[in-house]
């Protein structure tokens, strides 16, 4: 750390000049203080934040596209209460703290009329507290951890089937095949923990045994040590409380390490088209769950799926369906309330019992979804099919999972 020698007179002058121009530049930056733009009073402004970057980016994007389709359609139909609907959205970077800040901004700065929740239970936990603070009802599309509705809040309304029930039908299926030993892995955040709690509970009821259980961090991409351990416990089923990137990485590394089980099932990941694209043939036979599929027989599903495919170039996953359904729920609630007054909208949401493109919407006194069933999917011949429950199935479940060596 040797200090510079004192410079010559001329050099000092040059430095002074440079400093002057720099100071002008910085004062310019300072001068361009943009204070929040005023929103037009006549539009109904719907605010949301979704993950456009970070771990939940892929799913967040789908959800946002679902919202946007609803906004376009409702405006094409002449708007809501005769007013145009405008969507204000931000990127929460998959971070709960950013989500909380953004909902604060949406409510107090953008002064939105209606709120849609963020993607992931994680971010929703934080965002819902802000909504609660301002007594502002928020329809949450992408969250399903029961924990969210166990805090006595009155402003969070869920669409998704609860995380705890995600794996029920798959576990029952495993039981019917005489399987006993379960290896359970999950991310250390709200939703995956909810899934895991549900699995442990259900397994107990079914008399199955969790022989391996481990949490992992949100950024984990390396599961090899974990897989080596799982291998030594020789489980019949491997169940993951996961999102897309981790479930994909886990399956890839399972193959590399020749981990074998009769059933592989993951939350979120296998329900998305990307899972099959990324893993190719290795996705074959992997089970997962879904809130919704474009093949479901519900009003408007086919039309929505087609339009979505046209607009975005791929078939919608359940996050897109959820986004779209959320719009419909909001629409119904506002119509029922006859205004966008938060108190009236809240009352309407509590009272609502409708079937949207996404399925039935009915909540209990805490705002928790109780009307909607869960479905299990499986990747078969490069496509995603509903396999459980049997009434809604579009294909018969393949069993057991084919050993890596025999593919």
């Amino acid at each position: 750390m040797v200090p510079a020698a004192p410079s010559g007179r001329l050099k000092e002058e040059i430095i002074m000049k440079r400093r002057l121009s720099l100071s002008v530049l910085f004062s310019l930056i300072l001068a361009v203080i943009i204070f929040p733009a005023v929103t037009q009073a006549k539009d109904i402004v719907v605010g949301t934040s979704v993950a456009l970057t970070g771990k939940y980016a892929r799913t967040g994007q789908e959800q946002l596209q679902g919202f946007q389709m609803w906004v376009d359609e409702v405006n094409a139909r002449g708007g809501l209460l005769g007013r145009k609907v405008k969507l204000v959205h931000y990127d929460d970077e998959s971070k709960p703290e950013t989500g909380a800040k953004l909902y604060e901004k949406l409510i107090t700065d953008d002064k939105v009329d209606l709120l849609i929740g963020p993607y992931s239970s994680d971010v929703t936990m934080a965002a819902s507290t802000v909504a609660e603070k301002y007594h502002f009802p928020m329809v949450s599309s992408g969250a399903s951890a029961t924990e969210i509705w166990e805090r006595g809040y009155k402003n969070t309304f869920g669409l998704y089937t609860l995380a705890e029930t995600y794996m029920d039908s798959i576990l029952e299926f495993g039981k019917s095949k005489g399987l006993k030993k379960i290896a359970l892995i999950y991310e250390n955040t709200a939703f995956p923990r909810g899934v895991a709690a549900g699995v442990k509970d259900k397994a107990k009821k079914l008399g199955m045994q969790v022989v391996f259980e481990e949490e992992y961090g949100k950024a984990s991409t390396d599961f090899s040590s974990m897989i080596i351990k799982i291998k030594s416990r020789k489980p019949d089923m491997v169940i993951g409380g996961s999102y897309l990137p981790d479930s994909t990485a886990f399956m890839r590394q399972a193959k590399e390490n020749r981990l074998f089980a009769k059933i592989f099932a993951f939350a979120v990941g296998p329900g998305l088209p990307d899972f099959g694209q990324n893993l190719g043939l290795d996705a074959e036979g992997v089970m997962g769950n879904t809130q919704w599929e474009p093949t479901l027989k519900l009003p408007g599903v086919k039309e929505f799926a087609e339009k979505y495919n046209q607009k975005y170039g791929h078939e919608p996953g359940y996050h897109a369906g959820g986004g779209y359904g959320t719009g419909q729920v909001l629409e119904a609630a506002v119509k029922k309330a006859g205004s966008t007054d938060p108190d009236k909208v809240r009352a309407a949401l509590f009272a609502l019992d409708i079937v949207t493109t996404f399925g039935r919407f009915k909540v209990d006194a805490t705002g928790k979804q109780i009307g909607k069933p869960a479905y299990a999917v499986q990747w078969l011949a490069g496509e995603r099919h509903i396999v459980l429950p049997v009434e809604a199935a579009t294909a018969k479940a393949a069993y057991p999972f084919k050993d890596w060596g025999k593919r």
Partner: protein
Amino acid sequence: MELLEPEILLQLLIGGLLAGALYALLACGLNLIFGVMRVINLAHAELMLIGAFGAYVLFHIFGLHPLASLLIVVPAIFFVGYYLQRFLIERVVGRPMLTSLLATYGLSIILINLGLLLFSADFKSIPALQGSFLIDELAVSKPRATAGLISLLLTVGVYQFLERTRLGKAIRAVSEHAQVAAICGIDVRQIRMLTFGMAAAMAGAAGVMLSVIYSFWPGSGVDFIQKCFAIIIIGGMGNFVGAFYGGILLGVVEAFVGGFISTQWAEAAAYLLLVTVLLIRPTGLKGVARA
């Protein structure tokens, strides 16, 4: 306990060694830079990701196998590093440590966010090398084995280059005493550019190796750079061989902690190791304390 079965221990060990070789490749480059320039390059992991995304682009546009893309990516990143040194790093050499830390940190933020704009935040992966070799009952992951061995070869190659060739000796001379080297007629500036280019190329190669093992996104660098810090502290700052052993050690420790405790603890291993080492030996294990 089933974990103590030799087969599992062997699996963990192999996994750890292979991961360690990749860490070593990255950390040796970082230490090379520190040795010659006394600059801690916080953007080192982003140079690695340039390599990963390079391989990704080449694979998806030209269908080039990642191993083949090494031949294109590595020289390209050499030049990236060479000119980075010339136009940016050169200006902070010899200035206080904070200056170079912040300059390279600024560079790293810029690179990450350019990456986000270009590639979005989706996790990318290259489905090229997959599956495993079977040695008896032992499954050895193909991508990991390949990446580990190539990393090892490259690191050893660079080491031999530093030890044996004239240019390598010049680099070591500058690292040990820049002024004396200058007096002996070595073009120190040129050597610095070559060094940074070389270290960048090593990082780029590590990136290509990374791309066949893991999925990655523009923000993936953070974990790696922090692990590299731990490695160079353990191995001694500026010490090439130390960084190599440090990298291998971290890989093995992570694998065993992951195996015996949990993956979350494995992620913590680097920092716990780092803090412990600093508490026992304030200047690192083989450190040259030059502030």
